[in-house]
């Protein structure tokens, strides 16, 4: 079963490493007849997409977009989640409920008005615009996850800190954040994957531009223009998967823990 699940991805990888005429003529599984015949393997597809297709630039753009769009929401959400868990203010539980409610609002609901504001203020097509948008969209889930985690910390901890004269700010930075590494890690992976893999938000706010477009955008336009050129597509797709898949294998445990915190408790 598990093997059947990786076959499609395996086919992609194998094809991206085969010479173009071979990919177009025979099935990728045929290489396994003579797997050590080195004339049947090549890196030319990768050289081609990275050089001529401008994929290197898109790769860089993906990083420029993803890193701030991961750090920013986590920071903002942690502050809010801490207040929701351990500080008192009027309307606390009600506001939290509203925030969680926005988890299910389809993003499609927000595009038209924000795009209008963006084009009036010149934020459309800029990295700042997309950082902020991903932050806004990521917040409901991030606040929810962090609030669940903070809520599970022992209350006496914060009480004794306050008695010792700590402010909420130092309680947050010295106690809550350091104790939350597992939750922060899983949230970071989540947000990173979601932003890295996003197509729709990038398509709306960055337009189709090659200068700022991330990998997903580039890849989808390649699908449009190179529909049958499998050697180009497979290599490009594999490059776009490189970072998330590496991240997945390295930090799998946190990723799964994050899903469980978000779904089972929810």
């Amino acid at each position, binding site marked *: 079963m598990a093997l059947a699940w990786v076959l499609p991805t395996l086919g992609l990888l194998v094809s991206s490493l085969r010479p173009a005429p071979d990919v177009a003529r025979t099935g990728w599984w045929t290489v396994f007849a003579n797997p050590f015949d080195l004339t049947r393997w090549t890196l030319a597809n990768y050289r081609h997409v990275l050089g001529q297709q401008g994929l290197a630039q898109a790769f860089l753009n993906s990083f420029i977009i993803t890193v701030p769009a991961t750090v920013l929401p986590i920071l903002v959400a942690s502050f809010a989640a801490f207040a929701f868990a351990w500080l008192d203010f009027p309307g606390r539980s009600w506001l939290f409920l509203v925030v969680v409610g926005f988890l299910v609002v389809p993003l499609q609901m927000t595009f038209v008005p924000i795009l209008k504001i963006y084009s009036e203020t010149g934020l459309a097509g800029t990295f700042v615009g997309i950082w902020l948008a991903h932050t806004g969209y990521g917040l409901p889930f991030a606040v929810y996850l962090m609030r669940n985690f903070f809520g599970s910390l022992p209350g006496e901890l914060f009480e004794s800190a306050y008695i010792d004269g700590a402010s909420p700010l130092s309680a947050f930075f010295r106690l809550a954040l350091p104790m939350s590494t597992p939750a922060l890690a899983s949230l970071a992976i989540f947000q990173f994957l979601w932003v890295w893999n996003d*197509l729709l938000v990038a398509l709306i706010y960055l337009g189709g531009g090659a200068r700022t477009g991330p990998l997903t955008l580039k890849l989808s336009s390649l699908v449009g223009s190179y529909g049958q050129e499998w050697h180009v597509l497979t290599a490009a797709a594999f490059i*776009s998967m490189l970072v998330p898949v590496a991240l997945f294998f390295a930090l799998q445990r946190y990723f799964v823990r994050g899903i*469980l915190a978000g779904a089972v408790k929810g």
Partner: protein
Amino acid sequence: MRRGGAWAWGFVAPALLLIGFYLAYPTVQTIYLSFMDRRSEHFVGLSNYVRLLTSTAMLTAFRNNLLWLVVFTAGTVGLGLLMAVLTDRVRYEAAAKALIFLPMAISFVGAGVIWKFMYAYQPPGVPQIGLANQVMVMLGQQPRGWLVERPWVNNLALIAVGVWIWTGFAMVVLSAAYKAIPKELLEAARVDGATEWQVFWRISLPVIQSTVAVVATTMIINVLKVFDIVYVMTNGNFGTEVMANRMYKEMFEYQDFGRASAIAVILFLAIVPIMLANIRRFRRQEATR
């Protein structure tokens, strides 16, 4: 002793401002725009909705979203459950789960490319390069154009991609719930002579019922917003249109903000009941905390 007041507002203000700007305000604004004309200048009442609900393109999209809803949800939850139970018994559980879960890390666009390749069509007689058609040929069948054969083959082919991506998620969550079932309960039933089949349907499933509901809810919310897979693989051609892709077209190809907004509102209305159910469940849970 809890601290509050000014501190608390300082802590939540950035989050609330961002959510207000990126989610709350646009939601209200979109509802308003859906009653305006294409350039948001004149009030047109319900005419955007009427035109959408009577256009063939939109009706196809509704039908397909409904098909996605049923097949995708049943597929992910069913397969996820099956794999959760099966992987529980194999020796290489962690590795098997990682492989099934892997597509979650791949973008929908990447998955789209992977599966377009899987579905690639070559005329009969020529060697096939797509695995799906190779299998067909090996079974003595004609190769098929998976993505162009309407109305069912191509839609189901797209849904299969979605199921491939999301089953891992369902499996992980369900497997955690499955492992939490007290083993004595299952043993007791087996000792009493229940078959594995009965143990599963009469004991395991009822115990993890609420988790199944959570997973199904997540999948339904996902499915209503499905976009990337369709956009990359067929762009809604050959009768595979879905609502989210249609909205994108109204917005950028036809520059009709009124109708694009109306589609978003319809999408939202479909999700509201699920949202309310979730909030109720969440409240109950908080009450027992």
